[in-house]
């Protein structure tokens, strides 16, 4: 066999604020006891303790991952006019945590999700360049946008951009940040910048010299047409959710095709789906564990609430172990705030009802069945084979693993799957560079003329 094995890129997502993160019973006492220094047992991982972040990041680095990925929250979700209380909630500010993680890791890339709607280019470019310096060239920025007046209530502008403006602002934001990052010469001389555009008119001198990566790596998450185009024009990585091999291949081909329009080569944008995984000693064991995890993730309360998010009406009178409601969703409902409503609720409800009737599923079983995300479930050998297959078939360049436990959720993968990927010759056996761009095989941006 002469074909060069396609190399897999791996990243780790810190289990975030959502109902897929399985929570365990609390440790004794409040989490904020001052002076608490002793690390807790990993089994009692926290969404906020630095120990949990450090453990997961060190595990990812032990597994020679490309980067570690943090999400962002800017407003607590509400449901039925009250703060949603069933999911893991509360998280630190991502760039600050990543700067601290730079002290306990050496090579791992450090990716922060930061909203381009509720920040300004100068300030954010400065914070990201600082992270790139302080980590020795390991910074990445996952660009997200918001159209949400609900979130805007926490910010000066208060507002609200319509869907089209979100992306034009984000695109101009990234371009402006790059102008700032390029404004110092590599030999350490600042040059004044001036940017005039639709969203930003700014000028002056940037406060941070050119950082080790030139430009921190830019990640884009999302699947809309605008999102794909934005990624093709401006991102280094696209974070997707395409599950099946066929859907992944179609997405991969579409996005890579778009790059040519911007004079970019296919390998300049890495496609990395977010995936969950469950390992077992046998296939049956893994399936059994996966089913248990789904039951933990979708409690009876969570099942009803998920349904309410689609129906947009109070369904608290329904039995989660009973059939789906026979009423239609309210498509204009504001029942849920702070969570994106995917798709047309009437269509989703019809699909779920059909699924429920066909298989005779209760509300809770339907939610579990319908919401099952792409997962690799199986023995370490099977998971390694599947991952290699995805990448060899051009359905992905790698994966962002989303564990359901913190901080020990990556341990098994690193101990049991990574060595198998290495044996197959599809994953590195050592870091060969020091920066995230090195790990990803991405070019270093040249100096602007």
């Amino acid at each position, binding site marked *: 066999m002469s074909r060069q094995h396609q190399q897999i890129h791996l990243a780790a997502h810190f289990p975030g604020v959502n109902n897929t993160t399985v*929570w365990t019973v*609390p440790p004794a006492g*409040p*989490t*904020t006891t*001052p*002076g*608490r*220094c002793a690390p807790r047992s990993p089994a009692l991982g926290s969404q*906020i303790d*630095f120990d949990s972040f*450090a453990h997961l990041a060190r595990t990812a680095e032990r597994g020679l991952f490309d980067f570690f990925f943090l999400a962002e*929250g*800017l407003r*607590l979700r509400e449901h039925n006019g009250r*703060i949603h209380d*069933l*999911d893991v*909630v*509360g*998280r*630190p*500010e991502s760039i*600050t*945590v990543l*700067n*601290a993680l*730079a*002290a306990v890791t050496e090579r791992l890339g450090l990716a922060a999700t930061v909203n381009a709607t*509720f*920040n*300004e280019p*100068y300030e954010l470019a*400065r*914070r990201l360049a*600082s*992270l790139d*310096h*302080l*980590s*020795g060239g390991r910074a990445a920025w996952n660009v997200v946008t918001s159209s949400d007046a609900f979130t805007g*209530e*926490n*910010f*000066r502008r*208060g507002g609200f951009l319509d869907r089209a403006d979100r992306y034009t602002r984000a695109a101009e934001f990234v371009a402006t940040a790059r102008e700032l990052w390029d404004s*110092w010469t590599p030999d*350490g*001389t*600042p040059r004044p910048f001036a940017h005039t555009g639709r969203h*930003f008119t*700014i000028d*002056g*001198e940037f*406060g*941070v*010299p050119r950082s080790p990566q030139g430009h921190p790596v830019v990640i884009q998450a999302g699947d809309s047409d605008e999102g794909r185009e934005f990624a093709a024009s401006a991102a280094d990585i696209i974070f997707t959710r395409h599950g099946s091999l066929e859907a992944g291949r179609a997405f991969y081909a579409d996005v890579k095709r778009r790059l040519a329009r911007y004079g970019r080569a296919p390998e300049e944008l890495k496609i990395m789906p977010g995936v969950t995984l469950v390992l077992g000693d046998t296939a049956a064991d893994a399936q059994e564990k996966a089913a248990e995890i789904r039951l933990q993730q979708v*409690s*009876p*309360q969570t099942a009803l609430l998920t349904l309410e998010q689609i129906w947009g009406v109070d369904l608290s009178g329904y039995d989660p172990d009973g059939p789906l409601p026979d009423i239609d969703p309210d498509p204009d409902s504001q029942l849920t705030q702070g969570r994106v409503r995917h798709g047309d609720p009437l269509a989703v409800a019809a699909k779920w009802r059909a699924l429920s009737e066909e298989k005779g599923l209760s509300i809770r079983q339907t939610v579990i069945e319908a919401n099952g995300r792409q997962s690799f479930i199986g023995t370490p050998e099977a998971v390694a084979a599947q991952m290699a297959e995805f990448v060899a078939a051009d359905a992905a360049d790698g994966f962002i693993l989303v564990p359901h436990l913190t901080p020990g959720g990556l341990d098994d993968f690193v101990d049991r799957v990574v060595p198998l990927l290495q044996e197959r010759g599809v994953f590195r056996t050592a870091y060969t560079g020091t920066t995230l761009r090195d790990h990803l095989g991405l070019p270093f941006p040249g100096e602007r003329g």
Partner: protein
Amino acid sequence: MSVPTGTLHLAAAIDGDGRYQAPYYVELARLAEEGMLDFITLDDTFGPPGPGRGRLDALAALARVAPATGRIGLVPTVTTTHTEPFHVSSAVATLDWVSRGRAGWRVEVSATEAEARLVGRRPAAPAGELWAEAGEVADVVARLWDSWEDDAEIRDTATGRFIDRDKLHYVDFEGAHFSVRGPAIVPRPPQGHPVVAVAATDPVTWQTAARHADVVYLRATSPEEAGRIRDELRRRAVAHGREARALTVLASVAVDLADGEGAPGTGPAVNAPVALTDTPGGPPLYRGGPAGLAELITGWHTADAVDGFHITPVAPRHDLERFVNGTVALLQHRGLFRTFYPGATLRGHLGLSRPASRYALEREAAR
């Protein structure tokens, strides 16, 4: 010689314009920690520190330092004029989480047109207006820190509830320049309130300092002048319903230990009168040897003019090293300064108690 009335507090700037690599900051922070200093500060501005010069984000640099140190307080300057108060609250709370209760922030404004043009969102404004706004930012930031009660996270398996939403609170802050709904995204930080510092070196800052600060640096060249300013700041704090002792007042001194007392018999005599030189735009300057500086600190502290000193080494590596190994060692020898950290949090070092969440108190009172 009268006995000083309070514990002596010492802090040092580790500023490093033109320093972009983590080991520089870690080395200086560890040096200050060997000297048992209460905290280190790192200065910042929204724009570049000067024409052709660069500087890293101070909070970022001290977050990088946090896991590499164990006890010392970490106080970056964070500006309030062009930033989002919600982001400021989250970042400082997160610094407190990653340092396990050692965070503070020095509130600063951006007054220049050049800084305003870097954002393009609003024009420059007079300092008085900016400091009033900075006070509002400090206020809403503290409210956001209180917006999660300490025991809001319950993980109640019986009801499936992760949090008790009755213990999360909207802050509903309406200021002249911004409004914030809340609650915070970051759970209440380990110290409850990370320490708030204000450089009250200009009277325009005094009102904000007296109302919101835990630590104040003042600018004075004599203990008499320092004592007068401290009295004025305390008087204003009391007028805002605070305890006079809630303010820890430090004298700012730039320190040049480049010469003097290098070896026995060299440099100015140890017993020579110690004086500060007034310098325009910066803190008063001490130039001399480490023992002379110990004399000065002892004298001011004994006169009960200030609660301690915030020193800015002129050459950070050199002067901080001489300060720790010379001045601090002498003060420790005289029993004026601690020889170990009895606690682990910055509030602990400063003798400040951990505040309860105002919303928890309100809920308690309404019962």
